[in-house]
C-alpha cells in the first residue's frame, strides 16, 4: 500500500436541511495519517459531516480542504469522484449485480493499471481481508461480515489518502465486530492514509482513535485524544456519552490548580479529595463517576459511602454491580472480582483519577 496521507481541514462548516441545522459552524484540523473517530448519538450530525467530507452532501457554508485541495468553499465544490478518497458505507452499498471481484475492482477501472495488474491487486486485497474464495460470488450470497470485508477491500483498492468509515460495524454481531474492528484498524493504518471513522459506540471509538471528536446537535463538544476525553470530559454530555457509572451531587469545598476537595450532598456526609474540576470553590456541582473509579468494600470497611447492592452480573473475569446510595443515587457497571450478593450492604470508595467535577447543564 502506498497511499499518501492527506490532512483534513474543516472551517466553519454548516449544513442545514431546510430549517433543521445538522452541522453548526464546525471547525476541525486532522493531521495527515491520523485515525480520527467522530463519536456521537443518532442525529448528532456525524454522518452528515462524513458525507460532506465525501462530497455526497453539499454544505450550506464553510470550507473543507483535503491536503492542498480546497474541495468546499464559497466558490468551490469538488464532486466526490474528484476528491481521491474511499468510503465504507454503513449498509455496505455493494452493487448487487457485480461479483465480489468486480465490486472490489471498481475503483481500479479507469486507472492506468492494466487488466492483469488490476486482477492481481483485487486478488491480493481479497486475500488480505480473507475472502479470496468468494471472488466470483454476488453480494446477496454473502454474510453480513463477508459483505463488510468486500466493502473494506473496495475502499482499500484505490490507495487513496483519505479513508472514510460510516459506522461500518453497526450491522454486525458482537463477535464479528471485535474481529473486524481489529482488521479495520490494522489494514487502515497499514495504508498510511488519514482515516475518519464515525460511530456511536464509545468503546469502539476509544479502541480505534488517535483523536476523538464528540458531536452533539451538530456541534463538536470535544476534540482530543481518547485519554483526555475519558479523564477530562469537556461537558456533562461528553462525560455521559463516553461512559459513566453515575453522578453524585457535590459541593466544592476548595479548589486549587484544577483539583478540588468536594463533599457529597447525600444523607451521609462524605468528602473526596484531589478531584479534577472546572468548578469554583463554594459552588454546587456534579461529580461524574467513571465505572473504573469506584471500589466496592465490605460493609465493615472503615472508609467510604454506605450503599446497597441492587444487582450483580457475572461477566467472566468477575462481576459487575449496581449499587444505590441513599436509595436515590445509583451507580452502575462497578466491577469487582468477587461477588457481592444482591441486597447486601457495602461501602464504596472513589479513585479521584476516574471522576470529574463540573457544573451540570
Amino acid at each position: 500500500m502506498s497511499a499518501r496521507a492527506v490532512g483534513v481541514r474543516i472551517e466553519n462548516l454548516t449544513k442545514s436541511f431546510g430549517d433543521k441545522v445538522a452541522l453548526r459552524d464546525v471547525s476541525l484540523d486532522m493531521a495527515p495519517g491520523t485515525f480520527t473517530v467522530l463519536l456521537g448519538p443518532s442525529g448528532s450530525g456525524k454522518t452528515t459531516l462524513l458525507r460532506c467530507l465525501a462530497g455526497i452532501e453539499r454544505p450550506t457554508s464553510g470550507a473543507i480542504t483535503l491536503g492542498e485541495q480546497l474541495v468546499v468553499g464559497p466558490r468551490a465544490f469538488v464532486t466526490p469522484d474528484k476528491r481521491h478518497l474511499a468510503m465504507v458505507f454503513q449498509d455496505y452499498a455493494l452493487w448487487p449485480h457485480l461479483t465480489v471481484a468486480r465490486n472490489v475492482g471498481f475503483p481500479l477501472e479507469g486507472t492506468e493499471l492494466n487488466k492483469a495488474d488490476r486482477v492481481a491487486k483485487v486478488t491480493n486485497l481479497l486475500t488480505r481481508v480473507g475472502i479470496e474464495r468468494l471472488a466470483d460470488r454476488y453480494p446477496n450470497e454473502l454474510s453480513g461480515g463477508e459483505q463488510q470485508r468486500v466493502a473494506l477491500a473496495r475502499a482499500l483498492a484505490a490507495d487513496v489518502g483519505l479513508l472514510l468509515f460510516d459506522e461500518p460495524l453497526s450491522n454486525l454481531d458482537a463477535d464479528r465486530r471485535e474481529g473486524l474492528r481489529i482488521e479495520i484498524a490494522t489494514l487502515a493504518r497499514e495504508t498510511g492514509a488519514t482515516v475518519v471513522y464515525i460511530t456511536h459506540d464509545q468503546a469502539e471509538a476509544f479502541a480505534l482513535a488517535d483523536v476523538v471528536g464528540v458531536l452533539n446537535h451538530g456541534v463538536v463538544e470535544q476534540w482530543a485524544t481518547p485519554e483526555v476525553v475519558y479523564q477530562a470530559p469537556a461537558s456533562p454530555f461528553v462525560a455521559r456519552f463516553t461512559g459513566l457509572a453515575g453522578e453524585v451531587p457535590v459541593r466544592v469545598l476548595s479548589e486549587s490548580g484544577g483539583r478540588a476537595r468536594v463533599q457529597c450532598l447525600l444523607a451521609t456526609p462524605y468528602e473526596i479529595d484531589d478531584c479534577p474540576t472546572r468548578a469554583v470553590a463554594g459552588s454546587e456541582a456534579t461529580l461524574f463517576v467513571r465505572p473504573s473509579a469506584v471500589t466496592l468494600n465490605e460493609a465493615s470497611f472503615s472508609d467510604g459511602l454506605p450503599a446497597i447492592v441492587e444487582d450483580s452480573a457475572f461477566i467472566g473475569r468477575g462481576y459487575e454491580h449496581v449499587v444505590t446510595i441513599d436509595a436515590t443515587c445509583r451507580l452502575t457497571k462497578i466491577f469487582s472480582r468477587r461477588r457481592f450478593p444482591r441486597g447486601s450492604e457495602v461501602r464504596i470508595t472513589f479513585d479521584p483519577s476516574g471522576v470529574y467535577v463540573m457544573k451540570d447543564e
Partner: protein
Amino acid sequence: MNLQKKIPPRAHRIKWSGMVLWLILGFLVIIPVTVFLFAAVSPRFLRVGPQWFTLHSIGEAFTGYTGRGIMDSLLVSTTVGILATSAATTLAWLVHRTTLYGARIIGGMMWVLLLIPTWMMTIGWTNLIMPGELATAFGLNTVHLYHAFYGPAGIILILTTAALPFCYFVISAGLRGLGSEFEDAARVHGAGLRRTLTTVLPIIAPALLSAFAIAFAESISDFGVAFTLGANTHFPMATFTLFNAITANPANFSVAAVIAAVLILCTVPPIMLQSRVTRGRSYAVLGARTRSVRRYSFTPVRRIVVSVATFAVLIVLTILPLVASIATSFTRTISFETRTGIHWSTLSYHNIFSPPPSIMSLGSGLWMSNQLGVYVASGTVVLAYVLARRLASTRGGASQRIADVFLLGSVAVPGVVLGVGYILFYNQAIIANHVISLYQTMPLLVMGLIASAAPGQSRLLIGPVSQIQSSMAESARVHGAGRWRTWRTASLPLLSRTLTWAWVLTFTKTISELAVAQMLLVPGHEPVSVIIETTLGTVFAPIGSAATVMVLAEMLGVIIVVLGVYRIVTPKGWRRIGEVGSLR
C-alpha cells in the same frame, strides 16, 4: 426419546393453489389461444379448412405481404422497446432523482398518456397536422410533417408514446426502492456521472428489462396503429395482416394462426434475456433499512433549461393531440378551419347523448363499460398479483420459467387473436352444449378482457414485487403473524400504491379496449369503445371526437376519485414509502 432418529422430511403436499392458478390460466388464455393456433396445421380440426394436417400456411405466412408485415412488426417493436425504455428511464430519473420543476405533474401527464388508446392518439395527431386542421389554423405548413407521419416514423412515434407511461411506471417503481447509497458509493470511488449511471442502472435491471419487454410486447400486439396508420401507409404490420386474413373472403384462419404464433414466439427472446440477467441474484433493495433518496441539484439555469425542455417534449406528445381532438369536437364542420373560418359549436356533445334514432346513445355504453371496468380491473389485479409473486419468487423452478415465458407470450397475444380464440373454443358445439354455454354472455366478455389485461399487469407488478426483501415477511411471520396478516401488514403497505395504480390502469384500459370488446360483446349491451368506433364515430367526425373526449373525462374522473379514496383510507406511512428528504 431417541434423538439420533432423523427428523422426517415435510410431507409432500399437493399444491392446490398452483393447480387452481394454472386451471384459470388454462381457460382464460392457454386453451382458447392454443385451439386457434392449432388451426395453423390442422384447419379441419376447427372446421375452418379442408386439411387435417398441413404446413402450407407456414410458408404462406412468411412470404409476400404477410411476411413483410412480420418483419415490419419486429423492426418497429424493437425500436419502440429501446426508445420507450430509454426515454422512460431518463424521465423517471429526472422526476425521482433531480430537482426538476413540476416533477409531480409528470406522473399525471403519464396517466393522461396512458388513458389515450393508440387509435385515439392517431386521430389526435391527424386532427393536429393534417392540412386544414389545427396547425393550419395557426398558419403552420405541415404537409411534409403529415406525409412523414403516415409512415414508419409516425407508427414508431405513436407506439413509443403509448409505451412510455408503462415503462415510466415500471422504472419509477424500481427507482423509488433504490436508496442513493449505491450512487454515493460509485461517486466516492471515483466514478463520474456517466459511470455512476452505468453502474447503478443495472441494479434496477428487472425494471428496465420489464419495461423493454412490455414496450416490445405492447407494440407487437397493437392493433389500433396498425389498423389506422399502417394500413394507409403501405407499411403493413403483422396484426393488420392477421386481421386481413381473418376478415378476408374466404377467411384464412390458418395463415392468421401462423402469424399469431409468430407474434407470440417473438416475445420469448426478451423474457429469456430478462431471465438470464436476473436469475440467481437478488435485486431486493426495498426494505426497512432503505434510506430516503437524495436528489441531484441542478444549477438554477440548468434546472430551468431541463425543466422547460422536458415539459416541451411531454406537451407535444400528450397535450397537443389531445387539444386537437378537443378542438375538433367543438366544431361543426368537416375540417377544423374552413374557407368561412372556424365554426365553434357544442352540438356534438348534445348529439352523443341524443343521437339520431338509428344510432346508439353513449350513455348506456358508458354505464356498461364502467361495470366491465370494475369487474375486469378487480379480477385482473388479483390474478396479476398472484402471477407476479410467482414470477418474483426465487424458489421457483421449471414452473416459474414456464409461467414467465407464458406470461410474456400472453402479453403479445393481440386482442383480436384472443377474440378469435374465444369464439372458436367457447362456441364449439361440444363446449357450448355439454360443458358451459358462455358465448355472447357478459362472463365471457369479462374473461376475455381479464385474459387480455392480466399478463401485462403481472409483468408491471413483478418489478415492485421482486424488490420487497423477504425479511419483511419473515419478520412478520416470526412475530406471530399468519399468512394473511403477514401479507396485510408487511407486503400490502409496500405494494398498495402499485396495486391501486394497476387497478386504475386496468379500469381505463378496459373502457378503451376495442378488439376483444368488439368480438365478444353481448348484443344490445355494447361497450362504449364499440359504440364510438362503429356507430357514433361514423356519423360525423366531431361527434366521434366529442364522444372520445367525454369518455376520457369520465375516466379521468374515476382516477381522481380512486386516488382520492386511496389517500383518505390508507395510513400515512403507506404513502411515505420511497419519499424524499430526511435528516441524517
